């Protein structure tokens, strides 16, 4: 079973602790439709190491196993929206962002 650890990707080296950037950010993760049913919740706050990208949120959720690992497995068609706009996996996240996980849409 894969163990995924979300690591900062571009964090500069700093030896001045007083000026160090925040070690993590907190985003509000929103689950839509079938994902809400599968996870048993509509939303939750999630802390991830900074700097964080959308895919880091997915990886952190997958690492929980169970329904999260099943529904968010690589290859499953889940899209991500950040602050109400569709985003790519490599989208950068900021503290307080709303990160929504969307199953394939079926409107119309």
């Amino acid at each position: 079973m894969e163990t995924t650890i979300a690591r900062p990707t571009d964090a500069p080296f700093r030896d001045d602790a007083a000026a160090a950037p925040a070690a993590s950010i907190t985003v509000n993760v929103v689950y839509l439709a079938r994902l809400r049913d599968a996870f048993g919740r509509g939303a939750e706050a999630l802390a991830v190491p900074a700097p964080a990208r959308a895919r880091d949120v997915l990886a952190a959720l997958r690492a929980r196993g169970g329904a999260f690992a099943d529904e968010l497995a690589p290859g499953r068609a889940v899209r991500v929206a950040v602050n109400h706009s569709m985003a790519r996996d490599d989208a950068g996240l900021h503290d307080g962002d709303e990160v929504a996980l969307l199953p394939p849409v079926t409107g119309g």
Partner: protein
Amino acid sequence: MAVRVQEEDFDAGVEMARLRAADAGVGAVATFVGVVRDLNDDASVSSLTLEHYPGMTEKALEAIVAQARERFDIRDALVVHRVGTLKPTDQIVLVIVTSAHRGDAFDACRFLMDYLKTRAPFWKKEQTPAGARWVEARASDDDAAARW
């Protein structure tokens, strides 16, 4: 250009008349209405619940209409999509496009539906004799959108 997300039913005739009356340059009005059917994937559907993503839905529909404006020579467009619980024969979605001529009106109307079906954050959950299930997205919808 307007988009609305609402639980209430809509009146296509009233909306079409409104768009015509506002603009004497309109020569063509193309209208599509999506309706709830009683059968999907071999199962009887007794009711359908439309969920959406509040805060993003209107934004996504507006972006789709903006794309239609860029691609086609249209004068106005209206998209109304219902949410909540609906039953067979109920109206789900209305798309109206006005233009000087029918070519762009027809094309833009079809484009708006093809893009709405694949990009607008709505999800259907249908009630069947075997219980409730989330409707699966169709590859044919992706194919249709890809053709534009």
